[in-house]
């Protein structure tokens, strides 16, 4: 499942990130905001009535706002 498909309020773990579909500056910013394999993520809020974009998600202990287009680079797996 991809992060943009993760239902709200369900904790998951980042399985992999496809850095190649992101621009280099975006990839670095995503890293700086704490995105990395193995980190716990949870979609908290979705903005806008149309498209429900962007989304706010918890990454580790930080809350990050991100557009669905970028969230789709992140593959998540259920955390056990």
């Amino acid at each position, binding site marked *: 499942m991809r992060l943009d498909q993760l239902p709200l309020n369900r904790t998951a773990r980042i399985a992999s990130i496809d850095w190649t579909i992101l*621009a280099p*500056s*975006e990839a*670095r*910013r*995503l*890293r*700086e*905001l*704490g995105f*990395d394999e193995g*980190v716990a993520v949870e979609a*908290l*809020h*979705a*903005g*806008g*009535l*149309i*498209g*429900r*974009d*962007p989304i*706010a998600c918890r990454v*580790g*202990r*930080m*809350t*990050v*706002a*991100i*557009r669905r*287009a*970028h969230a789709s680079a992140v593959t998540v797996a259920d955390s056990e």
Partner: protein
Amino acid sequence: MNQAPLIALVGNPNAGKSALFNALTGARQKVANYPGVTVERRSGRMALPDGRPIELVDLPGAYSLEPSSPDEAVTRDVVLGRQAGERTPSALVVVVDASNLDNHLRFTLQLIALGLPLVVALNMVDLAKRDGLDIDTDALSRELGVPVIPTVAVRKRGLDELKNAVAGLVGSSAPKAPAAAPAEDIVTLQRRARKIAEAATAAETPIRQFTRTLDRIVLHPISGPIILAALLFIMFQAVFAWSEAPIGWIEDGMAALSDLIATALPDGFLKSLIVEGIIAGVGAVVVFLPQILILFLFILLLEASGYMVRAAFLMDRLMASVGLSGRAFIPLLSSFACAVPGIMSTRTIEDPKDRLTTILIAPLMTCSARLPVYTLIIAAFIPNSTVGPGIGLQGLVLFALYVAGIVGALIVALVIRRTVAKGASGGFMMEMPKYQLPSLRDMAIGLWQRAWIFLKRAGTIILISTVILWVLASYPKVPADSGVKQSEYSIAGRIAKGIEVVVSPIGFNHEISLALIPAMAAREVAVSAIATVYAIDDTADEEVVSQELGDRLKGRWSLPTALAFLAWFVFAPQCISTIAVTRRETNGWKWPMFMVGYLFVIAYVAAGATYWAATAAGL
């Protein structure tokens, strides 16, 4: 000349660095620029517990030592001792957010690798506790190999311990050169940071997050935009409602001062320069200080509480539809106070085309310098009636002017993104800080700095242009029996004749033409210019001199002219500082010239359309 050891405050954005800086230095701060770049250098003096003085400098927030903006580059260069015009710091105070160690320790590890004397301020430990997180300070200190002091900057907790730790770091020897930046890549550092954070976390109870609960309402797709709109509406109503009394005090003070000087000085050049030129001109601008401060107060509160990023989140969708991102909303909202800091803060936008577009539309946000113009005209021409419970017609007109600027900006952004700044839209990725009660001290210091900048402008740009205008409008003296007005006969009047040819089709009269020239320096000068011109023309008539400027205008301008004047100022790029900062931020004259050109064209068309529509409607 300044040999007190330099201590640099470093840390991630949102670590509470500035609050700590304010708590440590209080009001003894100096704001300057680093040479050659437009990055602010905030520094302040403080004494260590043993009495030694040190200079503390608050470096821009950064995520790492690999800069992605000019601000982050300054941070890197200062800690590496490479920044021109800055000494090498004797020690660093690294500020980290206690509840966000995973991320903030990465930068801390990079800084520790430099080998400078260093202490970690584990800030906002109270918020971490609130979220059920207990950090073992000793364990963290062991893991990092540096002293760690828990602090709560906004509540002034842990400051003495921090000062003691700094005193222990600052030796008598000269600062040593930092080691080269570490070669470890960001992924390795990040993983090490996470391990250390885990080891230092003593207890983590199931999260009971206040921020998350509040965000459910604040970021909700329906209640969120309603709250945002309500906040903005309250903000703009407050600018009018709360300022009435203090404006009255300033007006009374000015009138008293004017009377005092009028009786103390003999008639002549000096007396008319001071009374008609300086007091009428500068005074007409200074009365708007309360409104500007109220506006800044709201913006500071929105920033410090953590709401500003939520507003960006809510606005992202709308901004995306014109090719921008929610991030652009923050510079644009601060442009409501002043476009200059607004344009400077566009640096946080990484996408160059997003950034250029944001710079080009920033002057369309109604800045505080327009308030003097708007309030003068609205108070004089729009009846003070109510159109609904608690909604005044004057406030509504002001709101409409703000909306006109915003709608104009969105349309312009759409056009720019499809023409001169064509290309794929950048993204929107932002850290959302926790909600926090802003501290009174931080607000007071922020407001004081704004007030000082405004008064300095009033004392320099506005004073000088007012005096020049007064001289140009006063000489040569009109012959006593000619029946020609002084403001038309003078040098300024003759220059204005030329401009009048261009602007009379859009309803502008002679006095407006005259005011438009000095108003190029700053918009609010238009008010002081008009005040000066009428003060000169009216000296013969004692009765009129004592009238407020608004009352003088009422009898002389038609309503369509007044409305056209308002429409003009929604768009006209009349501000030297904005043009200068745009040149600096875009590295050349091309974009500032483009900006000035397109804004004047829109201003002319908008004022003309307003004038003719109002005339046709029989107003």
